[in-house]
């Protein structure tokens, strides 16, 4: 009951509270920030899922970049509607993840993390070298999402003809985010979630009692990369451009940090982590050249004070009170 109420309150705040507040205060620039947070948190959700099977994935930037390029190329070269490219970008990344994941998921611990980190750099280099991506100049002036209609009934209006495309983008990103976390939440409470947890605890033990670990870890990695691709495609369409430097090693690291900061033991940890990190970074903009210094100091401090994530804070405080 309490859970249902809090979910309803959260949705109400997302869909009515935030737009209402923005209309009241006139801070229209917040839409762009919040849209970015929502899209990035989809990517973080994917990284969290790889954490869930006990792997540290620092390669989400590679899939975000790949998804972004797939969407950009399909929209500009093939003239496909953005709404159709969105799932295609996700599926492309999932397929790519299966190909790459089959060899590299055999690696464990730090080895896996290192390969995924290098993967991000390789994605950037590929984007620079491949002929279809237009090199360092990137792909620019990508059109806004078009209309989606069934039997003449408009489901999603053409963004270019909307009075307020910022709000439309915000609603799109938030909806995608809710869907991604719904999937994640449902997944952790399913049979599959149990199996994933068994991988996190001990792969050899899981394998010995008949769990198909090779299949499961590729599956988790593919879902994770699907979310990365969706995040990348979403970004491309709100910024209407993509460059090889759109997602770099620092972005991959940030996806991972979002999960850590929110708390690895909580499904909604990556969402909170993304919000806090992104807003923290933007707020520190006022500190000019000390921005990075303060930001990284706070990160290190957070690690020392709450090593198990922000969402573990209530339990920590309760634990202390009980003693």
């Amino acid at each position, binding site marked *: 009951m309490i859970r249902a109420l809090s979910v309803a309150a959260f949705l109400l705040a997302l869909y009515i509270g935030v737009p209402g507040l923005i209309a009241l205060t006139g801070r229209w620039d917040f839409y762009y920030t919040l849209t970015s947070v929502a899209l990035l948190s989809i990517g973080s959700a994917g990284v969290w899922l790889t*954490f869930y099977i006990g792997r*540290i994935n620092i390669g989400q930037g590679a899939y975000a970049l790949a998804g972004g390029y797939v969407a950009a190329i399909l929209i500009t070269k093939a003239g496909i509607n953005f709404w159709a490219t969105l799932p295609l970008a996700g599926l492309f990344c999932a397929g790519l993840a299966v190909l*790459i994941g*089959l*060899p*590299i998921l*055999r*690696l*464990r*611990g*730090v*080895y896996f*993390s*290192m*390969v995924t*980190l*290098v*993967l991000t*750099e*390789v994605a950037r*280099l*590929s984007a*620079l*070298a491949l002929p279809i991506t237009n090199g360092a100049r990137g792909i620019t002036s990508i059109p806004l999402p078009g209309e989606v209609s069934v039997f003449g009934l408009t489901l999603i209006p053409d963004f270019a003809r909307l009075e307020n495309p910022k709000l439309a983008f915000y609603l799109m990103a938030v909806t995608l985010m809710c869907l991604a976390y719904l999937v994640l939440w449902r997944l952790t409470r399913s049979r599959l979630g149990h199996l994933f947890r068994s991988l996190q605890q001990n792969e050899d033990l899981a394998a010995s009692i008949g769990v198909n670990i090779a299949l499961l870890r590729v599956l988790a990695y593919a879902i994770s990369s699907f979310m990365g691709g969706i995040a990348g495609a979403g970004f491309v369409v709100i910024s209407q451009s993509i460059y090889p430097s759109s997602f770099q*090693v*620092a972005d991959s*690291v940030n996806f*991972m*940090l979002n999960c*850590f*900061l929110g708390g*690895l*033991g909580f499904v909604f940890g990556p969402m909170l982590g993304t919000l806090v990190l992104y807003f923290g970074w933007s707020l520190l903009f006022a500190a000019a*050249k*000390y921005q*990075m*210094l303060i*930001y*990284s*100091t706070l*990160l*290190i401090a957070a*690690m*020392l004070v709450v*090593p*198990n994530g922000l969402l573990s804070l209530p339990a920590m405080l309760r634990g202390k009170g009980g003693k």
Partner: protein
Amino acid sequence: MEQIIVNGLFLGASYALIALGLTLIFSLMNVLNFAHGQMYVIGGFITYTVVAQFHLPFVVGLICSAVALAALGAFVERFLFAPVIRRSKREESTMLLAAGIAFFLDAVTLLVFGEKQRGIPKLVPGVFNWDFRIVMPYDRILIGVLAVALIVAFILFMRQSRTGRAMRALAQDRMAAELMGVDVARYSMIGFALGAMLAGLVGGLLVSIVGVNLGMGGPTSIKAFLMIMIGGAGVISGAIAGGFLLGMLESVGLSLLAAYGDITYLVIFASLMIFLAFRPQGLMGKPWG
């Protein structure tokens, strides 16, 4: 062809030194030091400051880099990594810390040394020229020889000294080493300091050849990761093999693939994937246990 091999050997010697520091830290603490590239950059800037601004000899600059980075490494281990490892539920938490430290060192470097590319004058003038088959400036030869000497010194130190033996025991089995009376906390700190010192030394050595700038940290870390994946993480021979192999691959790739654009690292990575599919623990690494 001879030229390519010599270039590869020169690159390999300096790469191997970077990889040695990273692999030492990894084997002792199971920590992937994201900030390794940043430590390399700081080492380079310190040598630059000492040599180009205070007009002191190059050797003094190298010693300053080594001492400063060793102190930094010891501090980072004692006050940041050790407490987090003790208190966190999952050992991966050290990764967030390491990434935070990498950002922090980048920020400090920007504030202290600025964002300009820096270099120091040539140490030795002149170019070694063997019939135009091998052309190599003398200062590169000097740095290459110094790097090899440092690698040999490091191996001897790890094999022969009491500290080296303690660290090898720690890398092999932390708990057994502790039970045998090895002071684990102390040698972890010394190991971290030593690893950071190696990064700083390479930075100092290479500042005379390629110079140093703020943006080099991240790519250097990535190259170091590549090397220890090729060789096998946590194994000293693996780090050396990985360093020389990557140096050689880069040298060969740059000359053979130059016609196809900047795809050397793409090819190296693709081959690494295939290699890891057959041998996930790298060349010299131990299989998972």
